[in-house]
């Protein structure tokens, strides 16, 4: 039922409940795995338990004769038809990449790689046959450690002759955006050198990946739980040698992605090829175990950082030497993920010199690729940890050191040392508001008291003043970075004769709330009721053009395309309205969904015009009977949301346990379309970033086996583990788009990780702790405290705690202030023995 109301309030800015949530929350909708087609066959994958081996034989006879089994395919069976999975981002001209068959042919390069595919009449029959496939392997040396791999030794891909896929450099001196960082280091009054590790993470989206392919029509239709139906369509056509016009890809409702569904997967290619071979619809749905094992992973970098500064704490240069673990293959945008970070290490600061060098390394592990924030959380973590370390070196408050270096609000627009132009921002305002909400001074006072009394539970305060580049992306910038596509977005609007409006967006939502937000924008723009707007997306036959959803781009780019399409509708309607009102088009104004003849009460509504155009009985000469319009928007620049996040933690020095006491974030994401959706994005983002700081880590053992292969060991937090979040906003509208919006999908994830780790380290700083490797588990915290006491026997032998102390400060003289107050207090001694 539709409620038609007199439109007096604007939709944009109102906390509308999400119109899609009824069906998403109850699950009464079409997910890929719900789809069942007549005669549909079911696929199950046989996966390698070996991380690196030659396949010497595969015996599929027993599996083939298992009840219900229709066929079994190996890599050799699929041959050229499976092609090689695409990588759309060759970051250098000489980038090395191995062929990437969907089903391994001669060798397997990570544990979990597919070696055969069972096709059966039921999912059960397919599963039953998996263990009947007999694969013989010859072991090859397994490369697990990226730092060792970078130095040579055993090779992940012997044919490539190296484990280094590519080396990518940005140098501000060469780019003409700043000075020479080596000069800055040479002349430094203060140097801070640190190495941080971004542990490997698993996206852990709620809906496992699923794909259904129907080859029985003139066009082959493929449904997939994907973020990128448009890119997937093109890439599948190119990979498998199918005419693009013979493929239709549909992303029905999709249950989350976080970048984990920004991929062209082996499972999609296999389902497509097998269904076409057999001429039957086929379905594959992964188990949660397969999702953790073989859905692409994220992060996994080692960051060696050198920051030079004056004695007053003014940063003079930053040098970043990065190792990025690709895993065994290059996925869709794998090599580009660290490059997205390259532009963000200077963050909100005015660094005069900057150099970034990244080496992309192959190892025998699942491949990494985009995961919420993709490169930017890593960069933000590094610089925000470093700024806290610099504050300690200089002996000032961490907020003070930031203020001395950040871009002042009156200095915008600001060209950064990484070559970006930040359009707007106000770091002072967001920080002042966050401090006030947090009760910063009172918490610092309590921290002093606890230190002085040797409280076994110490208080730490962490700061993160982040920015990010959103709205991926200006196509010319992507071109300059050798990315294989543009960054525009498309939208079209169909005005239906009943007055309803269909909005088609190329941005493929998978839980973000596009349907609600786009409805609000169009309701305001066209003056129609919120409930009269229907948003369609995800089907390449309905939404023919699009570049999908990732990189906080939907609203800043896709939303702008919707605005442009709506404006075209109005302009197409204007001459028709003038004709029907017998007025001059120049005398018409469009407000509240109506064209009015200025100075009269003569008007006609946009819905009436849609009906008039449908009938087409009375059109002006030479005007087509249609109000429908489409538009493509290519942004001129990125948008740059920012914010100040403050976190207080209590660290139990007896057990090493960290509890978040309070968390305040004040984000500036520009104009807001729907504050309720923003709040949801911020909360979810915070949780994901905090989880990296404290809980989540994908761990491989020396043989390349994923140890954290289930949610028993891969710790995803629940609401019970998290505090109340205090959130607020300041608003500096973006000047790079007419909506003034900046993007919020990744903000919380990017900002929260360093805020939490800074807080943990701050709690223990006076006990001699300068770093805790992520995730800051109780065991790692406790081991660090033991290590400090020289009790080496207490540190972990079988878990990676030895690396807990990253003790690579170049010059001990710079650390004179590190010992601080109350070192060797009773707290740590209590930590050693109950």
């Amino acid at each position: 039922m539709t409620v038609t109301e007199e439109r007096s309030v604007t939709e944009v800015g109102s906390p509308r409940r999400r119109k899609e949530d009824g069906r998403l929350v109850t699950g009464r909708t079409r997910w890929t795995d719900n789809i069942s087609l007549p005669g549909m066959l079911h696929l199950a994958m046989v996966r390698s338990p070996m991380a690196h081996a030659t396949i010497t034989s595969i015996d599929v006879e027993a599996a083939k004769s298992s009840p219900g089994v229709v066929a079994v395919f190996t890599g050799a069976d699929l041959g050229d038809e499976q092609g090689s999975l695409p990588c759309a981002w060759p970051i250098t001209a000489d980038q090395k990449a191995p062929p990437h068959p969907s089903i391994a042919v001669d060798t397997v390069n990570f544990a979990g790689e597919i070696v055969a595919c069972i096709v059966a009449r039921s999912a059960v029959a397919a599963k039953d046959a998996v263990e009947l496939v007999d694969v013989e392997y010859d072991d090859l040396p397994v490369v697990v450690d990226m730092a060792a791999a970078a130095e040579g030794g055993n090779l992940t891909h012997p044919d490539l002759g190296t484990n280094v896929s590519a080396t990518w450099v940005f140098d501000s001196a060469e780019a003409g955006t700043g000075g020479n960082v080596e000069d800055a280091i040479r002349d430094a009054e203060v140097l801070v050198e640190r190495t941080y590790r971004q542990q490997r993470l698993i996206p852990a989206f709620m809906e496992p990946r699923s794909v259904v392919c129907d080859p029985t029509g003139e066009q082959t239709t493929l449904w997939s739980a994907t973020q990128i139906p448009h890119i997937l369509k093109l890439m599948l056509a190119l990979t498998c040698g199918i005419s693009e016009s013979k493929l239709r890809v549909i992303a029905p409702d999709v249950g989350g992605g976080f970048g984990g569904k920004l991929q062209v997967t082996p499972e999609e290619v296999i389902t497509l090829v097998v269904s076409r071979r057999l001429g039957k619809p086929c379905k594959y749905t992964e188990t949660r175990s397969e999702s953790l094992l073989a859905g692409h992973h994220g992060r996994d970098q080692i960051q060696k950082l050198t920051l030079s500064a004056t004695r007053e704490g003014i940063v003079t240069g930053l040098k970043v030497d990065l190792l990025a673990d690709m895993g065994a293959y290059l996925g869709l945008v794998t090599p580009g993920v660290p490059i997205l970070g390259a532009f963000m290490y200077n963050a909100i600061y005015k660094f005069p010199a900057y150099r970034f060098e990244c080496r992309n390394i192959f190892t025998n592990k699942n491949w990494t690729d985009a995961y919420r924030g993709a490169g930017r959380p890593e960069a933000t973590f590094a610089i925000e940890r470093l700024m806290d370390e610099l504050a300690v070196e200089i002996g000032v408050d961490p907020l003070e050191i930031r203020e001395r270096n950040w871009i002042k609000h009156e200095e915008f627009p600001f060209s950064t040392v990484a070559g970006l132009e930040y359009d707007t921002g106000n770091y002072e305002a967001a920080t002042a508001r966050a401090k006030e909400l947090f009760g910063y001074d009172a918490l610092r006072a309590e921290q002093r008291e606890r230190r002085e009394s040797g409280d076994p539970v110490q208080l730490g305060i962490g700061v993160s003043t982040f920015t990010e580049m959103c709205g991926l992306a200006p196509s010319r910038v992507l071109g300059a970075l050798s990315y294989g596509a543009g960054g525009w977005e498309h939208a079209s609007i169909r005005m239906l004769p009943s007055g309803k409006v269909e909005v088609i967006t190329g941005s493929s939502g998978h839980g973000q709330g596009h349907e609600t937000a786009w409805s609000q924008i169009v309701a305001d723009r066209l003056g129609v009721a919120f409930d009269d707007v229907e948003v369609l997306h995800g089907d390449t036959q309905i939404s023919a053009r699009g570049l999908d959803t990732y990189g906080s781009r939907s609203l800043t780019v896709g939303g702008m395309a919707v605005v442009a399409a709506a404006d075209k509708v109005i302009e197409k309607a204007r001459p028709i309205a003038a004709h029907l009102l017998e007025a001059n088009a120049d005398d018409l104004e469009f407000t509240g969904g109506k064209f009015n003849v200025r100075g009269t009460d003569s008007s006609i509504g946009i819905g009436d015009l849609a009906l008039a155009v449908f009938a087409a009985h009375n059109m002006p000469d030479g005007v087509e009977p249609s109000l429908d319009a489409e538009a493509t928007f290519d942004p001129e620049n990125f948008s740059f949301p920012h914010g100040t996040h403050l976190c207080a933690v209590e660290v139990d020095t007896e057990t090493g346990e960290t509890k978040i006491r309070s968390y305040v974030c004040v984000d500036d994401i520009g104009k807001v379309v729907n504050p309720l959706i923003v709040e949801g994005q911020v909360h979810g983002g915070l949780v994901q970033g905090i989880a990296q700081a404290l809980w989540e880590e994908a761990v491989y053992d020396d043989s390349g086996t994923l140890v954290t292969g289930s949610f028993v060991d891969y710790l995803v937090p629940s609401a019970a583990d998290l505090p109340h979040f205090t959130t607020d906003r300041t608003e500096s509208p973006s000047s790079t788009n007419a909506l003034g919006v900046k993007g919020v999908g990744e903000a919380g994830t990017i900002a929260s990780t360093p805020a939490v780790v800074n807080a943990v380290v701050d709690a223990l700083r006076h006990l001699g702790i300068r770093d805790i490797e992520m995730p800051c588990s109780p065991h790692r915290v406790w081991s660090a405290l033991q290590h400090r006491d020289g009790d080496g026997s207490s540190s972990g032998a079988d878990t990676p705690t030895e690396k807990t102390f990253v003790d690579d400060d170049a010059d001990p003289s710079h650390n004179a202030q590190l010992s601080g107050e109350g070192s060797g207090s009773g707290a740590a001694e209590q930590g050693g023995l109950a």
Partner: protein
Amino acid sequence: MIPVAFDYTAPSSVADAISALGSDSEEIKVLAGGQSLIPVLRLRLAAPTLLVDIGRIPELRGITDEGDAVVIGAMTTHAEVADSDLVKEHAGVLAKATETVADPQVRHRGTLGGSLVHADPAGDLPAPILALDAELVIAGADGERTVPAANFFHDMFATAVGDREILTKVRIPKHTGWGAHYEKFTRVAQQWSIVAVAATVKVDGGSISAAKVALTNMGATPIRATGVEQALLGRAAAGDTVKQAASSAAEGTNPPTDTNGDASYRRHLANVLTRRAVLAAAAS
């Protein structure tokens, strides 16, 4: 994931259950709530040919007062145990441990007997049962036998219950007036215990007159911290004395090493958590 196909039977009496267990099916598993068994089946880590579901046997369910003991039927759910006034009053440490098991959904499906016979080293209920010196009643083709908790847990996932037997009830001597606490250490709320300590103590005039302490996940089976129990006797229920007594909690344990911590960390945790558990029990 989909389990391998199996036969299923749901007997309505203990006698029928024993008879089903005596059938000649190749591999028989008892379903007693399924909180551990179903995931194992779905991951295809086990492929039984017959599941005997004992969750529909009325005589296995309920909590009764039998004078000097509280008797809990093996198929009594965690929710029923945690909510029981009888258990709270006379076997407080079991009630407190049971409250910490997983989440409300699991506590309404999982059963005390299922947890005990599954005997996961990180499971929360074996330690309080051991601490309370409970007796476990096992039924088989030859009738019933009673095994003290100290002899019940044989190894990781192995107990005194034989292949063709079921646990029918747990008899817990009343610990009326004893303080009780279960100190559980996890990294996230939904997680097996990294280490946990069940403590129940009797305090007379400020000093501890009796103490029972058992450890979760400090070895293949739950372990009584007998050294701690003895050291606590006659001592004040206060920080320093309890801390000293608790410092021997990890003696003789053989804890595992995994992604949550190594053995030495777990030994350290056992000491800290034992101190906390005993102090909290004495104050409760």
